[in-house]
């Protein structure tokens, strides 16, 4: 994609993101007139009572804004990590879910929740087990000879099922009255329980992680050429890949700690972005971030407004992801050979 076309696409996507963010703030169980934010919650312009204007302001700033920002950044984080994992492991079939990062982090977070009430401990433990999970997947792929593409997927499957079973063990051990429902609901994925204080502590880290990966996207191009070639081009493969794994796994584990296991975004969005701009990571990563943000925000809006009760977002992304990914697969087979 040429520079001009890429810039135009960026501007277009940012415009879509701004619009959908604005709309998202106003829709929900409490219906708020679309002009509310623009008018600065002015009761006269909106033609509503002073009290309703105040209520609207509180609903938007205390409840919807943190939620919208969380959905948006989690979408961007998952999509960016998916794109980064695919390039650094030279494998278009991997994603945070397939490498076991999501189940590893989920296990870590659940363990953290069980052992301590602190959000920080849960997040730290989510990150540590996320790293262990991706490390196990990569180690298994290296340990057994064979097709590189397939062995890494197998490593991911093994690592992911290991941590899924450990997670089941934890849920089994959890107290059925309080802890169990909390863990189960959180696992299905969703932003309804995210408190604004937790969101505002975690989101800056996620934002910084995404920016770091975007600035390192040149390294992803080199790493996707293979270890020996990258080394022959003067790149320290071990260090740069390790740094990238730490940052990608960190932002993935933060999405798990906030919103549970949200599958498919990290696999699907990079493929969509690649269809638009090609495989160059300097364009692919920022585009994935924007498309991921738009997509997850859109899905979260459906989750909280389409039905009487809220649907967990993890269920929704899988339901929407499956048909969409089949469509993507049917259009990209030539790009994978």
């Amino acid at each position, binding site marked *: 994609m040429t520079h001009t076309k890429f810039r135009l696409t960026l501007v277009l996507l940012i415009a879509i993101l701004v619009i959908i963010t604005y709309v998202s703030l106003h829709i929900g169980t409490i219906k708020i007139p679309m002009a509310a934010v623009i008018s600065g919650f002015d009761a006269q312009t909106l033609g509503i009572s002073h009290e309703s204007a105040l209520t609207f302001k509180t609903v938007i700033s205390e409840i919807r804004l943190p939620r919208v920002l969380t959905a948006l950044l989690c979408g961007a984080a998952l999509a960016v990590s998916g794109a980064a994992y695919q390039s650094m492991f030279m*494998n278009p079939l991997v994603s945070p879910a397939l490498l076991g990062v999501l189940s590893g982090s989920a296990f870590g977070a659940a363990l953290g929740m069980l052992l301590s009430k602190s959000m920080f401990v849960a997040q730290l433990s989510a990150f540590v087990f996320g790293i262990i999970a991706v490390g196990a997947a990569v180690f298994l792929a290296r340990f057994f000879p064979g097709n590189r593409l397939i062995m890494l997927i197998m490593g991911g499957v093994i690592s992911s099922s290991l941590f899924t079973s450990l997670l089941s063990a934890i849920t089994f051990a959890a107290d059925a009255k309080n802890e169990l429902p909390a863990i189960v609901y959180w696992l299905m994925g969703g932003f309804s329980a995210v408190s604004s204080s937790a969101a505002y502590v975690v989101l800056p880290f996620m934002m910084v992680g995404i920016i770091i990966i975007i600035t390192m996207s040149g390294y992803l191009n080199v790493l996707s*050429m293979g270890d020996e070639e990258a080394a022959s081009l003067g790149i320290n493969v071990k260090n740069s890949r390790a740094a990238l794994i730490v940052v990608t796994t960190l932002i993935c584990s933060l999405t798990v700690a906030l919103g549970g296991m949200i599958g498919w975004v990290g696999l699907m969005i990079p493929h969509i972005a690649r269809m638009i701009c090609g495989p160059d990571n300097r364009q692919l990563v920022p585009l994935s971030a924007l498309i991921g943000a738009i997509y997850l925000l859109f899905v979260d809006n459906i989750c909280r407004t389409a039905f009487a009760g809220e649907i967990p977002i993890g269920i929704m992304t899988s339901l929407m992801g499956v048909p969409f990914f089949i469509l993507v697969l049917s259009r990209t087979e030539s790009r994978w050979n």
Partner: protein
Amino acid sequence: MYPISVENLSFAWGKHKVLDSVSFNIETGTVTSILGPNGSGKTTLLKLLMGFYTPLSGHILLGNDDLKSLDLSLRAKKMAYVPQRHSAVFSYRVLDVVALGRIPYSNVFCKITNHDYSLAGNCLNQLGIEHLAERPYTEISGGEQQLALIARALVQQAEILIMDEPVSGLDYGNQLLLLKQLRRLARSGITCIKTTHYPEHALWTSDRAIFLREGKIIAAGNSVDIINSEMLKKLYNADIKILESEAGSHKMRTCVPIFDDI
């Protein structure tokens, strides 16, 4: 001072010794072919030269510096690598693949500038493949991929070019095209080292040859001097006759196998 000299280099996988006290010097602007049967340690030797493996013992000198003491980007500025088969997964544009040769010169963000892209375009021109610039790398032929990788090595502006079986998998026309390019590069002062399975190719393009058998050098020197029936029998355990014939303005030598025992 030689661009590359190797002193008593040994390497082993576990207990299996792959290279045993290998020593040689490479002169500037020469093409050196490393010949040997399968499993003789050719590729291992190249990967040691590139610094991908750590030697068991011995030294590799690049000019006056020990390879170990040079940092990666400095190495990359002196030495470029053309791998055997490129297993590309993502369909980058050929121009983008070639421009990656500027990575050793780029800043900490791996920024590739417009100047780098124009250099990459020049190198594609130089090899006569400028029409491939916008094509996806995964959709061009094996020969074109090999040429694109050579273009990337040229963009790297390294004085040494290390190639692992550059003609493997190419059709006859592309093989000759590549060999001609190698000759031209050597004439412009670039030192080339390649592994090959074809003693003929060593006769056609290279000044020097190194015969490697079971991890040991059994002969090294000018190609025309050491590539003869006797040495080829030792190296490959096959009966081969060398013929000389006129081809254009050159005298070319060819290898003819003797099939008497059938």
